[in-house]
């Protein structure tokens, strides 16, 4: 492959696999300890951080990012975690923006809620299917294919909304935005339910196992009789479904679709990539993604409570990604 986007020199000789495994365990513990230390720091210095109200609030705020990060994680699981040639969906946030615009437009046009939901999820899955076709059918690198589709989708969203806020309201949206059950809001329940369902499917069913096989060793998976292309395609359609679901949550939270949803992309990538540090083989897991989504949520929340500028947040996320990747690249098990 002339376009093999891989860096520099060959791998160092294998052999210290035992040391590597120990290092990997140390990194997992270190990541959890860092997570706990930052939480403890906020709890001690930021007033109101460790209150149940604030914690539930952060989980609510994390619902949208969490759903989108599940989509990204599944794409990375099925496409392989080699970020340059493996699975990635850069169009995910823009797709959620388009779906939100579709949902707001459909609701405002007087469509009944089930129809509006179907149109929204359908739009998301259609974009996902196109991405899947580009990656599986046409063989375009996911990074490049979804970079192009990100621009197409963002352009379509802008034509639909003319770069304005589309306000909307419906009984369903009020239930989602202010409904409560057992003292926990609907948005938080959606995140909890999604985590459980996606977690069970990915980690407790043959489908999940096959996805890891397809992503980890496509050739071996093909030799074992798996339809690799179909699985990879499925991950992009699933990511599109997540974009549609997240879009409904976005509209319910803001009572509108707003331009600029695409900016969520960086946080989604941060969540999915940071989550890999919590797994033994540094691949995405549902638990790891949930942990890092909540971590990112608490990070932004803690900054806010400490009256630190929110402009720091993306920089801190970037630095964390670099730190995680630099550290894990030393401990990644040899695959050659």
């Amino acid at each position, binding site marked *: 492959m*002339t376009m093999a986007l891989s860096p520099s020199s*060959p791998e160092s000789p294998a052999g210290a696999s035992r040391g590597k495994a120990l290092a990997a365990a140390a990194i997992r513990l270190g990541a959890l300890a860092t997570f706990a230390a930052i939480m403890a720091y906020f709890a001690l210095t930021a007033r109101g951080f460790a209150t149940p109200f604030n914690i539930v609030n952060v989980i609510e705020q994390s619902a949208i990012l969490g759903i989108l990060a599940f989509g990204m994680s599944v794409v990375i699981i099925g496409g392989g975690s080699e970020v340059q040639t493996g699975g990635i969906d850069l169009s995910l946030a823009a797709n959620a923006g388009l779906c939100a615009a579709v949902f707001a437009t459909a609701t405002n046009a007087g469509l009944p809620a089930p129809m509006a939901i179907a149109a929204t999820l359908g739009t998301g899955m259609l974009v996902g299917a196109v991405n899947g076709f580009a990656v599986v059918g046409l063989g375009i690198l996911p990074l490049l294919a979804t970079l*192009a589709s990100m621009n197409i989708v*963002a*352009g379509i969203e*802008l*034509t639909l909304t003319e770069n304005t806020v589309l306000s909307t309201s419906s009984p369903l949206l009020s239930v989602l935005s202010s409904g409560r059950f057992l003292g926990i809001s609907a948005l938080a329940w959606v995140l909890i339910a999604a985590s459980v369902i996606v977690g069970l499917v990915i980690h407790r069913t043959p489908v999940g196992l096959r996805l890891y096989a397809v992503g980890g060793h496509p050739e071996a998976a093909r030799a074992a009789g798996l339809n690799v292309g179909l699985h990879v395609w499925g991950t992009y359609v699933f990511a599109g479904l997540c974009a549609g679901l997240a879009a409904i949550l976005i509209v319910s939270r803001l009572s509108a679709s707003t331009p600029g949803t695409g900016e969520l992309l960086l946080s989604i990538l941060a969540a999915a990539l940071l989550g890999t540090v919590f797994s033994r083989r540094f691949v995405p897991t549902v638990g790891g993604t949930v942990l890092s989504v909540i971590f990112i949520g608490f990070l932004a929340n803690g900054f806010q409570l400490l009256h630190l500028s929110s402009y720091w947040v993306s920089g801190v996320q970037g630095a964390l990604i670099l730190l995680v990747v630099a550290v894990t*690249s030393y401990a990644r098990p040899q695959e050659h």
Partner: protein
Amino acid sequence: MSLSLSRHLPKDRESFSTLAVLVAFVGLFLVFATQADAFLTLGNLRNVLVNNVVLLAIVALGVTFVVSSGGIDLSVGVSVDMASLVFVSALAAGVAAPLGLAAGLGAALLVGLLNAILIARLKISPFLATLGVLFIGQSVQRLATGGGQPIYLVTKDYAEIFNAISRSSLLGVPTPVWVLILCVLATWLALHRMGFGRQVQAIGARPGVAWYSGIRVPSRLTQVYILAAVLAGITGILLSATVRSYVPMSGNAFLLDAIGATFIGTTISRERRPSILGTLLGVALLAMVKNGLLLIGWNFYWQQVGIGVLVFAVLALSFGLQRRH
């Protein structure tokens, strides 16, 4: 569509894809020339060349080196922005223009150096390294501008400096075009006529073999990422002189276009490799389509869709043929 056609023209797929891109180019040119009266006027062509082609082409030349080395640079927009931020801030603080210009390019160089350390020394994959730098660059810009306020220098005091950069001309050719010509010559020599370029391409094609054949991979990669950042910095300076301001995060607009132009360029090369001339063709195609869509009355949003579809089609052609190879 083009893909199924290619099955009927099996003799020479490489020349088919070159032909397809050229036919698309000429076809679109004819469509715009007949549909938009203003398209073929000298004023319009000059405007497209100075305002669209030059800025994008210089960024894309740097991306061509990065892609040749087997990497990718998502942070070129940050280099554009940092050069613009430092240049404009320096002028606003009363620093002499040449010094401000040097400081702007220095800021871009630092972005490249950071990328280089992450990629060549710490062995972080280019995608993640430059993604991290993109995050950090956005934070830095927000912090420096109180959340994203542009810095306008529209008073007369600065007009002279900005005009000297963006509106002057030498021998009837606008200065920005001279800058582009120099950049093209330098990068063409470096990539296609010097050992440096051969080594960079070897790293891109076979990193392991390049390493074993004694190429100093880390220092070559360091040079590549610094070169890409400095070229993007030149665009940042030209951009701020053209719009007489620094607008935060405006560099990101170049990212897809520069990558798209580079990959359009690979479709016309026999070995599917990035090349300086191919990239220039890609830039010309994108700039022409943008300008043409504008002139036939598509709004900015549909232009974005149009460009995305075009890049998508070219990627499909490029990768589809490569895989069938």
